[in-house]
Structure formats: C-alpha cells, structure tokens
C-alpha cells in the first residue's frame, strides 16, 4: 500500500471538476511521485459514498492516509494551500520563492 491515499470527490464532468483533477495530478506528480494512490469519485454516480463521507461541497479532496483524515475543498488551484491541507513538506523550491517566503522554512 502506498503512503498517501487520496480521494477526490467531484460532481459531474464540469470545467471545475476537470480543473481540480488536473491540478491534483500535477501537484501529486511534483510532490508525491510514486508515493500515492488517487481515486476520483463522481458524486452524481455514487451519491451514497458522498453521504457516507458527509461531502457537502465539491470538489473535495480527502487525505485518507496517512491519518488523521484531512479535507481540502476547492478546485485545488492554490497549491500552497493544498500542501498545507495534505501536510506535505514541499521539496526543494526555486531560489526566488525562498527569498519571498522569508527564512521560516
């Protein structure tokens, strides 16, 4: 089993859903290459799963593993927020980002 298990809930094949899927795939490839499983669930097709998970808004990304459960709501266009949500330490950053973000990291 992979270290990260992610579930992305979407509602139908809307532009927003497509955007969320694309954003997530890119972030995962950049940050978690080979370390994750991703499942995409369309709420329109599997409403009972949305009920079980109490999904209200879509897109919603759930980090099932590692525990604890974490949720990220939105089309995942803000990568920093996604990383915060998934609690992933970003790998080496380009120099200009370090200067703008300060020396906290």
């Amino acid at each position: 089993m992979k270290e990260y298990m992610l579930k992305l809930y979407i509602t139908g094949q809307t532009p927003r859903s497509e955007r969320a899927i694309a954003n997530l795939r890119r972030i995962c490839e950049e940050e978690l290459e080979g370390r994750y499983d991703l499942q995409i669930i369309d709420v329109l097709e599997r409403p009972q799963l949305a009920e079980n998970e109490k999904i209200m808004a879509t897109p919603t990304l759930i980090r099932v593993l590692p525990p604890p459960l974490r949720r990220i709501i939105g089309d995942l266009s803000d990568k920093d927020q996604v990383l915060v949500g998934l609690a992933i330490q970003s790998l080496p950053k380009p120099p200009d980002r370090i200067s703008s973000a300060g020396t906290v990291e």
Partner: protein
Amino acid sequence: MTIEKLKTNIRGFDILSDGGLPKNRTTLISGTAGSGKTILAAQFIIMGIEHSGDPGIFVTFEESPEDIRTNMKGFGWAIDSWENENKWLFVDGSPELGEDTVLSGSYDLGALLARIEYAAKKIGARRVVMDSLGAIFNRFNNREMIRHELFRISSALKRMNVTSLMTAERTEEYGDIARYGVEEFVADNVVILRNVLEEEKRRRTIEILKFRGTNHQKGETPFTIIPDEGLVIVPLYYMELKQRAANIRITSGNGGLDKMCGGGFFRDSVLLVSGATGTGKTLMVTEFMAGGALNGDRSLLLAFEESRDQLFRNASGWGYDFEDMEKKGLLKVVCVYPESAGLEDHFIRMREAVEKYQPNRLAIDSLSALERVSTMKLFREFIIGMTSFIKQKEITGLFTSTTPNLLGGSSVTEAHISTITDSIILLRYVEMFGEMHRGLTILKMRGSMHDKAICEFTIDNTGMHIGKPFRNIGGILEGRPTHIPSSEMERIDKLFQE
C-alpha cells in the same frame, strides 16, 4: 394561476396559512435562538408521515442526527422507527468535529444537492427540511456562492414536486429577517417565529411575513410548545362567523333570572357575570349547570379558583347535588391551577376538554384568575378566540369575572371583554341602613328585551332568590348607594300621570 397548498397538519398552521404551505415551494422559517425552528421543521415532516404517509428528508447542518433523534424523543417522536420504515431519512451535513478543512480555490455545494436529490428519490420524499442555513454560511463563508447554491437546491426541489422548509437564525425579534441578509431571497415564502418578552412574560408568536401569490392571515399569532405534540398554534380569529343567532332560549337555572332576561338565556350566547367576591357568581354558575341537567343538557365547568371538593360542598350547601349530576353524565368539573401554565396552554387544554366532552353548556369560573397569567392583549385575544370557538359549537357560555372592589366598580376583565360577550349580568353589594344587601342587574342582553331594574336577591340553602327592585335607592352601580326620599319618588311617579 392559483397556488396549491399542502396541508401541514400542524395544529393551527393550516388555518393561519389559509390551507397550508404553498405546495412544491420553499418556505423560510426564521427565528431567534430557541424560538422553536427545529421543532417546527421536524414536526412538518412527522405530520406528513403520520397523516398522509408522505416520506420526508431532514437535512441537518448543525446538530447531528443522533442529537436530533434524542431531542425529539421528548415530544414522543420516535424518529428511528420512521427511519426503519424508510419514511424519514437524514442527510447529515453537520460538521465533523476535530477534522481539519482547508480551502483551495473555487467550489460549490453540488455534492449537497446531489445527496438531497438522491435521498429524496430513494424514499420518494414529498417534504424536505433544511436546518439551519446559518450553519452553512458560518462554515463556507461565501454568501454569494451559498445563495446561488440554495437557489439551485430550491429549484431542484420544486422540479421534484417536493415542498420544503429551510430554517434561518435572526439576531433580533424585530429586525432583519435573517442574520446573513440573503436567506429570504432563496425562498418564495417567509415565516417568522418569535419569542418575545412582554410585560415580564415570555410570549411565542408566529407570523407569516409573505406567501408569494397566495393568501394567509396577517399579523402575529400566539403559539406554544407542548410535550407530545410540539408546536401548537393558537389562531384566535379563525372562525368564519357562521354564528347563527339562534332564537332558542334555555333556562338560566333560576326562574327569577329567566324572567328578567325575557324568558331565559339565548342558546348560542356568551354571558359574563361580574361581581365582587362572595356576591354569588359561583352560585349562578352552579344553578346554570343544574338547570341544564334538569333538561338533559351536559355541562362542563372549568374552575380556576376553587378546588373540586370546595365546589361540590358549595353546591350541596345551596341544595344542588353535583355528584349525582356527574354520575348521570350531565356534568364534568375540571379544576386547574391558573399559574400552572401560560394562557395559550390553558386555551388549548380548554378547547381539548370541550372537544372531548362535547357539552351544551360551558362555565369558566373565573376569567379573572386567567387574566393574572396573561398580558392584556393576549387575554383579549383569548376571550375572542374562546367566544367564537364555543359559539361555533353552539354551546352556551357563562364566564365569571371578579371585581376588585367590594362596592361598585368594574373589573379590568369586564372593560376588556364587555363588547365581545352577548350579555352582561352585574352582581353588586348594596349597603343600606347599615346592612349589606345583594343586587343584580342585567346590563345588556343582545337581541332581547330584558328587565332594566336593579333587583335585590338573597341566597339560602335552596339557592338564589331574586326579589323586588330596589326602590328609593340610587347610585348602586357606582358603589355609592344613596337613599332617595320618597317625596322625590312620588314626584317622579306623578310626572307620568295625567
């Protein structure tokens, strides 16, 4: 186009709303914390299940389904058993405690809509409630998006022929319709629940603020929340005045009084008997019931001042046997401690007692006791409601009212309700030459000739005896009796002689 209504079967609501909630529309219920929104919402679904077998969906954004199941048990509502029968289904949108949520980019509430649609299809729901919108606004913090999504949900429900309620919070009893300022725009109809402090008493009211394109009653109507039933609305003005002024006369139980009234009371009338303590009001009530029993009339006595034992003892002291009347099924005495409940609750119980016993005669002894537990405005509404209620049932009503002063004077009760009752009988003490006498007069009797004199009466172990009019005495009603010299009387008498 007329808008069809869905009968809610919530007591009083269908009268207030002129037939129920607009069918297949969304109605917003807005109220402050503790105003009864969730109870009303749950009751809306339950009444659908119980009365028409219509399944319902409860979408909760605030409390967990488990909390709602527990809280509603107090009303005798076993939600879990309806869940097992697929009549009730929760859509759980309550927040998951201790779970981190992060926002990243744009989103909508499409999943919520999908879940509601799925649930509604699953059990064939006809009614949906969403409780409460404030919790979503609080959680997602994007008013425009939420407003748009709620609108989408309410349109979807309309398409599915589902009638829905959404609840929302308000911060003030008389202010904006709801906290976030946009809730009212997603619903066709708005109902406000209030829980106001008025003259140091809590008073719950419900008001239909708007029903788009259809009728409803205007203004605030009192309601109460009682165990085993939930919200009960007390519409006070609902009677279509079908009151046929019947010309049938019935006995007052006292021959002398019948004569003064021109042959007895009218059957469909409400009479008020006013007098100071000890003037004979309860006696008049007793004779009214006993007189009924002689003719086979069933009487219901709602007593707020004396205990059952006292009443029975008094009656036998005047020569009337209440026990015997009860045995024959011609009398029922219900004693209630006025402070035991608010006036709305009393009204409901009184109506229930009347519905159950189906009396021909009803006496309330006394209204003044009820007045103590109420505000003026509500009391007046209550009298109107009670009066129209018993008139519709063709019951004769005899209400008593206690005046605060021994001599003369009118009570507050009287001033409030004298225009509502058909007849008013005054009982007064009259001080004459160092002795207390009792006097009786009929102040008004709608639709009938009656004796205008102030007659003296006495009370003994066979009841009330009406005697001759007071002569040579004036100022009785003001409580300042003065002796009029006989020379003056003669002079007046002479005026009418040739």
